[in-house]
């Protein structure tokens, strides 16, 4: 009994016991607190009551209408008010548009010319009896896409989005011509997702072009494109794309719900949407796939996923996504299966190297020298003689240098960017070793790591992995291989807790369906992949009709 008491009273024993309890409890409490903070932030965002703006109807007189619009937009010099007379009725009318934003040629040819030309065979009787606006739409103006509005706010919104609006004296309606000047570029191959084999087309900035691209890839009547607006002030168009008889309704509902919570002034890029609707803002892994490729979006929605397109950006979002999908490219399916399986395996190896190679080097060199083969150990020791820094600091310096070079090469104009790469290679490869700042083996380690980090097909994932690499280096510098093991365990725990729109992030690494494993590390031949991935619970699971 005495010995037990003496044991408990020893300082390291009770201190150790205390720490064993204190550390997990404190971590638990702190994380709960963080989650609460996050929840509060979410709650404050969601139920924002929309202020009903004062609406004013179009008056039947021309002057008050124009006066109202001028009072709202009058100080802008790019807004043009063009007054002219309707030839058929000799009434005054005003065309309001934004200069440079409308298709002037079409406006002249199809709006102003027909309205100003002398009536030749117009049935005066009919004009008198019917509504003037309806008559103009039906008989005079040869434009396909047009409609009418009775609210002045509507008309102002349309003017601002590039549609000329015609006010006619004596009518309590205005006509909106959809004659926006389409500023667009030709379809190019996406820069960020180049393929050797595959369609050479990427999304454009214009939403309408993008939806048209998707339509052109599929004649399926179930392909559904639902549009809505986001951005309180800027009002961007956003399209949710899915295939109605494949997509799981719960997933679709969740996507719509999350998009409804977006309360932003301005949504310049789909990255804004991604960051607001993603599951875990603290995670280093991207939980939503972004792509420039229409074929990729088409493949995604055919698996039962949902795509989100935003006007003004070529980057579409696909939800949900799993980690294994981040390592796939459309080419995996376009090329033959054996070679692409090998390349896929290579990608898995590459991301492992990206995250762990420098930390393994640090651990082996400064903790577990006995695990290195003798010849290599001597070579490393020889190369490290005279290097003034411990291996961890050395690795940090080199990693920072490589990342800076990468960033510099990215931001600079292309011709200069190449020079940066060259200078960097010479300075780091030669001078740093010559000066004895770093060891040649470290250069190899860092170079291999850098190359393998560019293998990841998803740019966002690549950035996340670089951060993980630094964390792994810290862990290995403090606790060696044991630290790396702990770090990997933490990563696994995080990965298995993380979900993207209800789908566990590391599926199909976890068991869900053996069919999904056909498209995991290896890509099985196409004829074996008869079902859609079960992980998304699609309504219609069969790829082949029979």
């Amino acid at each position, binding site marked *: 009994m005495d010995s037990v008491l003496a044991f408990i009273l020893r300082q390291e024993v009770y201190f150790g016991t205390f720490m064993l309890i204190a550390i997990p409890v404190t971590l638990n409490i702190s994380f709960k607190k963080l989650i609460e903070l996050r929840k509060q932030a979410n709650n404050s965002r969601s139920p924002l009551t929309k202020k009903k703006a004062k609406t004013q109807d179009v008056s039947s007189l021309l002057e008050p209408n124009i006066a109202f619009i001028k009072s709202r937009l009058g100080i802008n010099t790019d807004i043009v008010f063009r007054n002219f007379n309707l030839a058929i009725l000799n009434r005054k009318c005003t065309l309001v548009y934004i200069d440079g934003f409308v298709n002037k040629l079409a406006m002249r040819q199809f709006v102003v010319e027909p309205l100003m030309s002398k009536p030749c065979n117009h049935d005066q009787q009919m004009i008198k009896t019917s509504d003037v606006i309806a008559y103009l739409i039906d008989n005079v103006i040869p434009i396909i896409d047009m409609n009418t509005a009775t609210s002045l706010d509507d008309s102002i919104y349309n003017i601002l989005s590039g549609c000329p609006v015609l006010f006619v004296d004596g009518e309590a309606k205005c006509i909106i011509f959809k004659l926006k000047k389409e500023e667009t570029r030709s379809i190019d191959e996406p820069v960020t997702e180049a393929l050797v084999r595959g369609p050479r087309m990427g999304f454009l900035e214009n939403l309408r072009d993008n939806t048209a691209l998707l339509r052109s890839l599929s004649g399926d009547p179930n392909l559904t494109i639902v549009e809505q607006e986001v951005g309180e002030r800027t009002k961007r168009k956003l399209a949710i794309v899915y295939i109605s008889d494949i997509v799981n309704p719960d997933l679709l509902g969740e996507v719509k719900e999350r998009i409804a919570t977006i309360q932003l002034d301005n949504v310049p890029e789909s990255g804004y949407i991604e960051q607001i609707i993603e599951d875990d803002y603290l995670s280093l892994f991207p939980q939503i796939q972004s792509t420039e490729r229409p074929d990729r979006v088409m493949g995604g929605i055919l698996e039962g996923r949902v795509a989100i397109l935003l006007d003004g950006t070529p980057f579409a979002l696909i939800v949900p996504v799993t980690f294994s999908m981040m390592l796939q490219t459309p080419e995996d399916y376009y090329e033959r299966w054996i070679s692409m399986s090998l390349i896929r395996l290579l990608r898995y190896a590459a991301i492992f190297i990206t995250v762990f190679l420098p930390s393994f080097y640090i651990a082996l*060199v400064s903790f577990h*020298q*006995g695990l290195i083969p003798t010849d290599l*150990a001597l070579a490393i020791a020889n190369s490290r003689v005279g290097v003034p820094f*411990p291996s961890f600091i050395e690795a940090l310096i080199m990693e920072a240098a490589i990342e800076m070079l990468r960033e510099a090469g990215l931001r600079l104009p292309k011709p200069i960017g190449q020079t940066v790469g060259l200078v960097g290679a010479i300075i780091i490869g030669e001078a740093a070793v010559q000066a004895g700042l770093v060891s040649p083996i470290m250069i190899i380690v860092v170079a291999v790591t850098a190359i393998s980090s560019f293998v990841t097909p998803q740019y966002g994932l690549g950035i996340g992995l670089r951060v993980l690499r630094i964390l792994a280096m810290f862990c290995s510098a*403090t606790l060696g291989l044991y630290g790396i093991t702990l770090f990997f365990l933490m990563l696994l725990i995080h990965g298995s807790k993380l979900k993207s729109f209800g789908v566990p992030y590391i599926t199909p690494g976890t068991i869900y369906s053996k069919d999904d494993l056909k498209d995991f590390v290896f890509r099985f031949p196409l004829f074996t992949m008869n079902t859609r991935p079960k992980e998304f619970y699609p309504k219609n699971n069969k790829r082949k009709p029979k």
Partner: protein
Amino acid sequence: MKRKQFYIVVMSLFFLCVLSGCWDNKDIEELTLVLGMGFDSSDQQKIKLIYQIPTIISSTESGSGQSIYQNYISEGEAVHEIIRDGATKLPNPIYTHHLKVIIIDQELAENYKLSFILDQIFRDNVSRLSPKIFLTDKKAEEILNVSDDSEIPSVYIDSISDNEQSTMKLISSMSLIDLSADLMSSQSFLMPNVTIGENNSLQLKGAGVINGKEQKLIGSLNEQDLQGINWIKGEKQGGTIKIHHKSGQVAIYEVKHLSSKIAPTLHKDTVTFDVKITADGWISEDWEFPGDAFDEKYIEEFEDLVEEEVLKYAEETTDKLQHELKTDVIGLGNQFRMKYPKKWEKIKKDWNAYFATSTINYDVEINVTNMGSAGSKK
């Protein structure tokens, strides 16, 4: 205020975790890697210890004509005392994970028990049990000093011993773990001997016989004896044997597959061993003319010649072991133990005496399966 405290607690816990690491963090160039160790008998004190340390030269200033290794020599009464003595001579702590070979002077092995000499290494929780152990009839210091600019002697010895499968004149090398096992079970065993041959080069030659009970060196075997041992044990899967035809011409038989079966029988108190040696192999060289290997009769004659030769080796070796050294290093005792476990318990203490008086019968069967790419000479 509350939030600030909260963060302080979190930060201090984080640092507590981090600061408890790093305790054995030491970069590789700040260690003294030891590749070889030598134990010599010393005149003044008990032991002279030699460590072989590769020279660490900065890769940018290589080729300065420095030797690629250095030997540190120290004397003392106990091994660990000597090792710690190194702290006063060497800039960095000694690190034995990469230890390749341990070389023990025969004089030392005759005078002290092996389990005493190697006690420190067995107890040490850092040392590995993979280094190979050799005896030497010279001094360990000399062996580790054989200068060759391109190779460190310890590494050289280590790589020679890798050739054990291609010749009958080498016995399989003894690692620290094998040695430890044999010492624990008081089994007698052989330790390969390293020596300095012609042209001042290192050579594995012969072996020392360690008596399991005394744990000391009691004698040695030459290359001929080792061939006998290898044939009897039947563990090699390679190696050659030289024979002479009746005409006096020489021929070489190369073993491809060798096995031996030892069957003990106990009759009253006398032990008899029937050893059946079977070998498949090729004629790899033949100076006989015409020497037609397509002739079955010729092949049979050839096989008989090899059988005779093997028998000669085996019998000479057993004669030496039974009558001169009186020590069982072939592992016959093990076979006996498996067959007569109860009797073994009674006699295992004096097994060597039983071995010395036992009868050993050999039955050798040699097959020539292949005569190589050329059969006869014309």
